[in-house]
């Protein structure tokens, strides 16, 4: 490898523009004649719309147009879709209620859009939006999924009686029941996985521009997957034909899943641009973000684990109620099913598993994938249960895990997944050593002498990334394939452009992807330009989510580089009059092995483009593309250990140390991987300690600003001790697994296991706020 190849801590190329304020985000975009949009939003969680009076608003200064849901429907704009069909266990398809981009009959959550106002300035648009009179007739409200399932609960959608979208199962119920009947011990737990608001630093935005001269549409939008947005907006929403629609997702300031989905606002801005004849820009403010960005998690789960007399796990039984909010968001059906229940085996050899998931409508913001998407929920269930069982059995949590680890691969779990590789002992050992678990008792005693309670908690997570083999996900109901594409364009001077269907919104792709070229040809990363996020430039792609850009996106680049390398070698062999098999490319030079014959990389590239002296029959040029379809999921895994100190007088938890020992397979840039883990841990610790989402009985989001929604700050976090252990993934050419979500997946149970250890009370829900911990302590005293 070169100094900037695989394994090198290359500084992020993109950071120069980000930290000097030169990033270009959607809200920075401006086109001639552009006007501003504001949305009229429902103040009620559930109401019938009896009328809409825009007369006062239309006369206000600067107002260009006000458009409503009836006009939207009249123009044939389709309802929002859910891209993954999940059926109930009795075979009936999921019951999906209609979700129009602008509501014209019923609103089902606070913040739902009912009209758009386009005006000369943003302030004028907002003032006029406030003057739109909507005649709402309030309807009864339900915000909790468990309540929504009860008889007599308010009904949201006529399509879904009892608010039940599906009642799905996975695994073998009979085998699980049989195993429980033989159990020597059963551990039972009720688990609440708290609803989270994603809060990317950059709020969503959309700029829709219809150009009548070309009959062409352009939409700049804060998207993690612009090609999917184009496909869905053309094929399902009829906003514009696919070949007449360009989607651009420029610099995007964080997504965490919330920018995967195609939201009402970008559809409406594009449609409104054609309707009003002006380019229309909308930028969400933070309050709108709280009320309209898809939320995450929100599960209620009952779990039971059956154990034999030797402390081996016999079976796991899981009953989950998943709150999907008021409408089914794009991947909302997959998150609590195929991304959740398939991971319930954890790192353990569990012979029988049965999971039952009920997905439910409520009068809340739609819930969808959020950093980890289903796997944090699964990990929380498994790892809280493991810790609880170990405590009940009076054995060391580490030894209990070790006793049940999977050690031979491939391993077929009872819940679809076939783990291809792993070394769970290695990460457990690394974690325990880094955390000095052996010295914990002494530290606990020392803390006790200061009146503080120390606790140690562990979480041995496994997750599934690199989604996913298209054939497999197709058979499970996915509406799209989950391959990735790449194109490598070598310029005549030898510099290289990588066009990728992945999308970078903070992950550092411009650097990491360039390192593949550095590795392959020994070129500096500065000679590589990574191009993404524009459907006019990149032919197609599935975007970035589920930690797939390495294992899937980079595999596609790797394949395209194979083709470039092969052609370059053919050209070089011809020019150097050598055998193709003897050509090697390194340090920017193309050499004949074992001789001093060589050419500069740029000379070979120029030769490809002059075409003056190419092998007979070879086409000029040096540009190759590839599509890569994964052969399996990848399975990152690791061991997280959290040590906390609780102040019994106030219930405050301080994280003393946090150890993350991860196995991500091949690491391309260790610095960027560490950064991904740090960020994931901050979010996971945020979920465990701070981030509580509260609705009142009327369906008002009480935690709709940073005054009430507690985001983690730097001072809430310790210096992390992170390390990686590489067990290569056999399923892709680079051996990569994925690292984007692990921190958020593995950390919440480690934190809660640590606090419950400290206070001696296992009854504690996330977020473990000081008050909750104080109450839990009072309960044991």
């Amino acid at each position, binding site marked *: 490898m070169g100094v900037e190849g695989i394994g090198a801590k290359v500084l992020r190329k993109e950071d120069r523009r980000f930290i000097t304020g030169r990033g270009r985000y959607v809200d920075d975009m401006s086109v001639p004649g552009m006007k501003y949009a504001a949305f009229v939003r429902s103040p009620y969680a559930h109401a019938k719309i009896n009328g809409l009076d825009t007369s006062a608003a239309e006369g206000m200064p600067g107002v260009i147009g006000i458009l409503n849901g009836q006009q939207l429907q009249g123009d044939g704009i389709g309802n929002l879709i859910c891209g993954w069909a999940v059926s109930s266990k009795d075979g009936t398809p999921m019951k999906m209620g209609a979700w129009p981009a602008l509501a014209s009959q019923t609103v089902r959550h606070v913040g739902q859009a009912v009209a758009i106002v386009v005006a000369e300035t943003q*302030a004028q648009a*907002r*003032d006029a939006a*406030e003057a739109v009179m909507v005649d709402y007739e309030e309807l009864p409200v339900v915000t909790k999924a468990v309540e929504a399932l009860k008889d007599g609960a308010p009904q949201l959608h006529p399509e879904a009686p009892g608010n039940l979208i599906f009642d799905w199962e996975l695994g073998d119920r009979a085998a699980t029941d049989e195993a429980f009947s033989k159990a020597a011990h059963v551990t039972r737990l009720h688990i609440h996985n708290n609803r989270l608001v994603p809060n990317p630093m950059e709020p969503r935005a959309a700029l829709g521009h219809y150009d009548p001269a070309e009959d062409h549409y352009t939409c700049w939008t804060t998207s993690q997957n612009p090609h999917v947005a184009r496909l869905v907006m053309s094929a399902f929403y009829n906003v514009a034909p696919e070949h007449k629609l360009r989607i651009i997702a420029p610099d995007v300031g964080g997504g965490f899943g919330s920018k995967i989905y195609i939201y009402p606002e970008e559809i409406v801005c594009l449609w409104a641009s054609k309707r009003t004849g002006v380019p229309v820009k909308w930028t969400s*403010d933070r*309050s709108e973000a709280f009320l309209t960005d898809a939320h995450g998690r929100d599960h209620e789960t009952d779990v039971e684990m059956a154990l034999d007399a030797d402390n081996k796990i016999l079976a796991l039984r899981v009953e989950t109620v998943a709150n999907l909010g008021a409408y089914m968001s794009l991947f909302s059906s997959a998150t609590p099913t195929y991304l959740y229940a398939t991971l319930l085996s954890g790192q353990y050899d569990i012979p029988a598993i049965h999971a039952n998931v009920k997905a439910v409508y409520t009068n809340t913001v739609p819930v969808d994938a959020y950093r980890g998407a289903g796997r944090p929920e699964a990990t929380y269930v498994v790892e809280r249960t493991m810790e609880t069982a170990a405590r009940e059995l009076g054995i060391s949590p580490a030894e209990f895990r070790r006793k049940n680890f999977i050690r031979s691969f491939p391993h077929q779990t009872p819940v679809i997944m076939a783990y291809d590789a792993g070394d769970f002992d290695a990460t457990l050992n690394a974690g325990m050593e880094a955390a000095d678990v052996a010295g914990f008792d002494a530290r606990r005693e020392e803390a006790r002498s200061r009146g503080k309670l120390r606790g140690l908690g562990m979480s041995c997570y496994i997750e599934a990334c690199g989604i996913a083999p298209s054939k497999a996900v197709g058979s499970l109901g996915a509406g799209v394939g989950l391959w990735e594409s790449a194109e490598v364009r070598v310029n005549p001077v030898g510099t290289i452009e990588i066009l990728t269907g992945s999308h970078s919104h903070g992950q550092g792709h411009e650097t990491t992807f360039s390192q593949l070229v550095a590795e392959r040809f020994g070129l500096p990363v500065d000679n590589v330009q990574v191009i993404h996020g524009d459907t006019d430039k990149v032919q197609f792609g599935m975007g970035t989510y589920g930690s797939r850009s390495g294992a899937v996106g980079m595999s596609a680049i790797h394949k395209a580089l194979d083709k470039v390398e092969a052609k370059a070698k053919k050209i070089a062999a011809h020019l150097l009059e050598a055998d193709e098999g003897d050509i090697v490319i390194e340090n920017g030079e193309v050499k004949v092995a074992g001789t001093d014959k060589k050419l500069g990389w740029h000379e070979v590239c120029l030769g490809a483009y002059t075409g003056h002296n190419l092998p007979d029959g070879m086409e000029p040029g040096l540009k190759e593309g590839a599509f890569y379809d994964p052969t399996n999921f990848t399975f990152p895994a690791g061991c997280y250990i959290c040590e906390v100190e609780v102040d019994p*007088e*106030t*219930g405050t938890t301080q994280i003393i140390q946090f150890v993350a020992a991860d196995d991500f397979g091949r690491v391309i840039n260790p610095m960027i991987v560490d950064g991904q883990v740090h960020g994931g841990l901050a979010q996971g610790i945020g979920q465990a*300690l*701070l981030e*509580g989402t*509260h609705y009142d009985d009327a369906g008002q989001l*009480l*935690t709709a*600003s*940073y*005054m*009430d*929604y*507690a*985001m983690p*700050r730097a001072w809430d976090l310790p210096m992390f001790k992170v390390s990686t252990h590489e067990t290569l993934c056999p399923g892709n050419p680079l051996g990569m697994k994925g690292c984007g979500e692990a921190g958020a997946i593995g950390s919440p149970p480690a934190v809660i296991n640590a606090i419950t250890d400290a206070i001696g009370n296992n009854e504690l829900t996330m977020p473990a*706020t*000081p*008050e909750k911990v*104080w*109450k839990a302590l009072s309960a044991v005293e």
Partner: protein
Amino acid sequence: MYETKYHRPVSLPQAAKFAADHGDEGKYLAGGMTLIPTMKQRLAAPEALIDLRHVPGLKGIKVEGKSIVIGGGMTHSDVAMSDEIKSVCPGFADLAGLIGDPAVRHMGTVGGSVANFDPAADYPAALLALGATIRTNQREIAADDFFVGLFETALEDGEIVTKIAFEAPDACAYEKFRNPASRYAMCGVFVARRGGDVKVGVTGAGSEGAFHWSEAEQALSSNFAPEAVDGLTMPQDNMMSDIHGSSAYRANLVKVVTKRAVKKALGH
């Protein structure tokens, strides 16, 4: 934000005149750390803003012996960094340094915070415990009379907080327990001892804003030690209760935080 007029008076009388012109529809703007976010959220829509930041006479910190006078226009950072205040009343400087974050401390002002009387603001606890005087462009008001109820003070329409004044006590300290979300005080306690007389100001916890904890004042006046508070119980009735903490929890916090403030004042 709604459209609003902006006035920049250069004297107190001119500021008062603008205020009188706009009546209830005008708002004084100092650091804007509460008002501007509220306006950006369109929760406040004053017809006019009257910017006090360029009015002379609101600036300056004057320390003579134990007497401290702080201009209403001084920022929290000015107070926190003042060597003079730190030398005679370090507890007060410490409190100012715990407000918000650096950006807020460099914009927000003493006068603005005092006039706004947010139930979780820090200064009111100190001004009550210190027996401070709030000077305005019209009169002087004792802190005990100044703070009336939630966001309600003795200020009349158009009245401007020009200075706060107090005598540094023999010992004092502020202890703050932050709300996990907003990081405002969920409970902040300022204790001040002058000879055998101890005052305790509590902010963030009470349902009517900052208050004196008289029982603790009595107990601590006879024994200025954390243990003196042990036997006391803060009644829950007047405690705030919300998603961040029940009244029972806040009542507990008042006691715990008071003990810690005493400990800090004792230099432990």
